[in-house]
């Protein structure tokens, strides 16, 4: 179906020659036409499962956005990443959560994750910045298991993780380059930025040439690594070229100031705001944010920032031994999600209308790493494609059915995902 009203933002800006914020542009799109067409997807994840009392011990933390929520309960996670009954093997519980396959806990065992499928295939999501994955703090090495697998939620495919960014400053730079904060239409600043980017292109062109001249000399194994680099360099060159093609570089979307702050909470809050802003400015349409690395070993998680947390063991040990403290930590993280959802709701545009958010964890209860009784909170109307304000008892539906439902809602009905699926979960889609 051809939709003539979908004017690419860049074309539009070129035509008018003025700086314009995206919210205004969105306002120009007939609301009716956007209905039932989800525009954004956000994946939020936390480690360690929920308290022993189940999801109801933490869900009240989201009360202020409950009208926008669908809680999908008691799903089963058939394909987790280790032999059944072995604790420790499934610390990186999202391995199979978002791939729908048994990874065997090796990078080669991965499949393309749900967020990547959406970003590359869903009709309303394509053509925006890809591979946006953030985590406020990377986890220390888990003994003899892979750091990558416990820190990367988003995978393009086997052996190909999206390395998440943990520095708000870097994330800011990535999403807002070309929309430098500052007063719109400052000709001097505009000129300086143009020169800087033009020179950057010269450098990148030189680098491409150097990579290519080396490539011929190397064997196949080494060429793989050079190709990765070349892909990155060429991708960057495209980005810079696209920015230079704009009539106006500075001030086309009101970017927040670069975020500082080094402690965990400051970083999480900064990343949350930047994610919201990236959606508002329509820079990205799919983003994943992990609240903490899988297992979140180490006392810096939980103990440091959750008021009332006693003991110095950290979140993960508490999930096994100290349910009261574990409950406090999970509640804290739920509260943070509520804050973020309110930001999305109360910004220049109510993003919860057009967006679908998935908030969940890879195991049900931290104590046993159980793979049954998993719940996931869907937040947002997804452009009207998703029902809200309800609880769904999935009756032990496989978790992959949830993603089949999401794919359907995003216009990819029948797109196969993972293994063991039995269809969509009824009651979620409008």
């Amino acid at each position, binding site marked *: 179906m051809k939709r003539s009203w979908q004017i690419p933002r860049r074309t539009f800006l070129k035509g008018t020659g003025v700086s314009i914020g995206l919210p205004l542009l969105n306002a120009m799109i007939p609301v009716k036409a956007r209905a039932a067409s989800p525009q954004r997807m956000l994946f939020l994840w936390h480690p360690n499962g929920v308290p022993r009392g189940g999801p109801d011990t933490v869900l009240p933390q989201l009360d202020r956005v409950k009208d926008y929520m669908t809680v999908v309960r008691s799903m089963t996670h058939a394909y987790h990443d280790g032999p059944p*009954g072995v604790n420790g*093997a499934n610390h990186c519980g999202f391995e199979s959560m978002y791939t729908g396959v048994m990874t065997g806990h090796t990078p080669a065992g991965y499949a393309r994750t749900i967020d990547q499928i959406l970003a590359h295939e869903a009709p309303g999501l394509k053509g925006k910045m890809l591979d946006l994955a953030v985590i406020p703090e990377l986890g220390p090495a888990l003994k003899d298991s892979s750091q990558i697998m416990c820190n990367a939620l988003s995978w393009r495919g086997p052996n190909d993780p999206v390395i998440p960014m943990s520095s708000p400053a870097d994330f800011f730079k990535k999403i807002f380059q070309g929309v430098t904060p500052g007063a719109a239409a400052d000709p001097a600043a505009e000129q300086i930025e143009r020169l800087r980017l033009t020179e950057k292109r010269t450098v990148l062109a030189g*680098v491409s040439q150097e990579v290519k001249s080396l490539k011929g000399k190397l064997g196949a194994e080494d060429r793989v690594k050079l190709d990765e680099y070349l892909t990155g360099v060429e991708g960057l060159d495209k980005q810079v070229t696209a920015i230079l093609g704009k009539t106006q570089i500075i001030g086309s979307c009101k970017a927040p100031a670069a975020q500082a702050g080094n402690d965990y909470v400051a970083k999480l809050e900064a990343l949350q705001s930047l994610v919201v802003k990236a959606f508002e400015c329509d820079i990205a349409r799919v983003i994943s944010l992990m609240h903490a690395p899988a297992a979140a070993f180490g006392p810096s998680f939980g103990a440091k920032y959750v008021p009332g947390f006693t003991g110095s063991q950290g979140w993960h040990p508490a999930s096994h031994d100290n349910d009261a403290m574990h409950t406090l930590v999970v509640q804290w993280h739920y509260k943070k999600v509520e804050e973020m959802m309110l930001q999305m709701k109360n910004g220049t545009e109510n993003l919860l209308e057009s967006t679908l958010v998935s908030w969940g964890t890879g195991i049900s209860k931290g104590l046993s790493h159980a793979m049954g009784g998993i719940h996931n909170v869907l937040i947002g109307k997804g452009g009207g494609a998703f029902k809200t304000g309800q609880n769904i008892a999935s009756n032990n539906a496989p978790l992959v059915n949830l993603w089949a439902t999401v794919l359907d809602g995003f216009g990819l009905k029948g797109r196969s995902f993972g293994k063991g699926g039995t269809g969509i979960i009824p009651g979620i889609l409008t």
Partner: protein
Amino acid sequence: MTPGGGMTPGGGMTPGGGMTPGGGMTPGALTEGRTLLRRLNRREYTNTVRDLLGATNVPQDSLPVDWVSKGFGLDTSADEIRLGPDDPDRLHDVAAAIVKTALDSGGAGYLTCTPGSATDRATCTRQILTGFLRKAFRRPATPDELTRFTTVAAGITDWKNGIAVAMKIALLSPQFLFQVVDDSAAAAANQAQHRLSDYELASRMSYGLWSSMPDETLLGLAERKELSKPGVLAAQIDRMLKDGAKTRTGIASALPGQWLGYNLLDQVEKNATMFKQFPALRGAMKDETNALFENVLKENLPVDELLTADYSFVTASLATFYGLPAPGGSAAARVALNPMGQPQRRGLLTHGSFLAAHSESEPEQIRTPIVRGEYVAGKLACQAPPAPGVADLALAEKFKADPNLTLRQNLDNLGKIGGSCAACHSLFAPYGLALENYDVSGKWRTADDKNRPIVAAGVMPGTGKPIESAVQLAGLLAEDTKLESCLAGYLASFVLGRNVAPKDQALLDEIVQRRSAMGKLKSTELVVDLLSSDAFLANAIGRR
């Protein structure tokens, strides 16, 4: 022992964790005995721009992440550390800042001319870039490269800015970012391996020992094709190991920390009310073990002195923590360990770094002697216990430690839950229990929390010799050549940038046996033998 997966060092607790053959990030099996194209890791990049352009304060967060997961888990592992799609942008900005700072403050010695009446712009640019690229690429630039770089520079209106652009391209070139080994000629001639050129050897040596670029001496020897001559090579290794300032930011700080697992000590925390002194001591503890390692390398001491050293390098506050007379001044100084009476400490086994890194945050946890014991068995005795099976883990899940019993009693009971637990615990528990005289922060103690006396005695796994104390255990471990084998494996993996292949292992065993037969294996001998070997001087040819 699987090709591609490499030998398993240390071993571990997590089934299914990391050691899968072919589980690397590069598709397809890797050619055995081949170091892949190796990116400079964060430490190497930082040291290199320091030595190349005098750069300081390089933002570490903006450099590519050095993910390592498999095998020896060292940050020099060439098949694992990669570049992500966002890295070019970040590296560009880092390079831009470094070049700007260097050129704004005099040019770091590279601006040897300015275009004027004596030298025209093209000649001057060529002269400057010839000098710079020789350092940045760790070999002279080829005529083609020089033409490319001078052409780009000539295309920029401002002369100095042209130099800056060329320098930025150089810092983003794979010839700078990677340790390039050009094996195309050997591959074309169908040879099994490529003999490193003298320049490639200079880089491998300097990154192996200094985690940085070759200095002028190494480049000069490479230019004269003298570096690979055996006498020259050995003399250079000796010189490099004696350069404490360079090894301190290289192998002496990077290898022991990763081998013994205290590199993450900054992230280790202890019960804040009970171990108030600990947070302020982390840095001094790491420095202590690094300094011992540096000293053993610098002074060409026997490798087992790492375990038996009756001296250490401590700050005043760490000395006080250890119950030693505090040295004057704020810097760490060499002190004798317990010159009078019964010694409480000897060597790295009794260093705060090792003890605190492998302990729980709370006292009297059963996991502390287990984890410590596993580390000693795997990393110092080179006999990692097998990972527990599924059935054993299920049994262990149900086990609850009794707070009224001592740790030793609880650990004994854990061994008795059935399965193969008891047999396996005897392989590492005695080591962990022998270290019970040190609390989770590494402080000496003679009684536990409930004031029950600590019993450190036990039976040494393998040899069956009686263990009396941690210090005596250090002596027992030093008597064996297992420590040498363990260290040789990590050293080889570190300098080669890959896991140890079966063929390499045979070489390492040969070195350790031959040298030990002649007396104690000394540090320089180990490094010289390894760096003079085929494994180091050549690289297997990979698939084309």
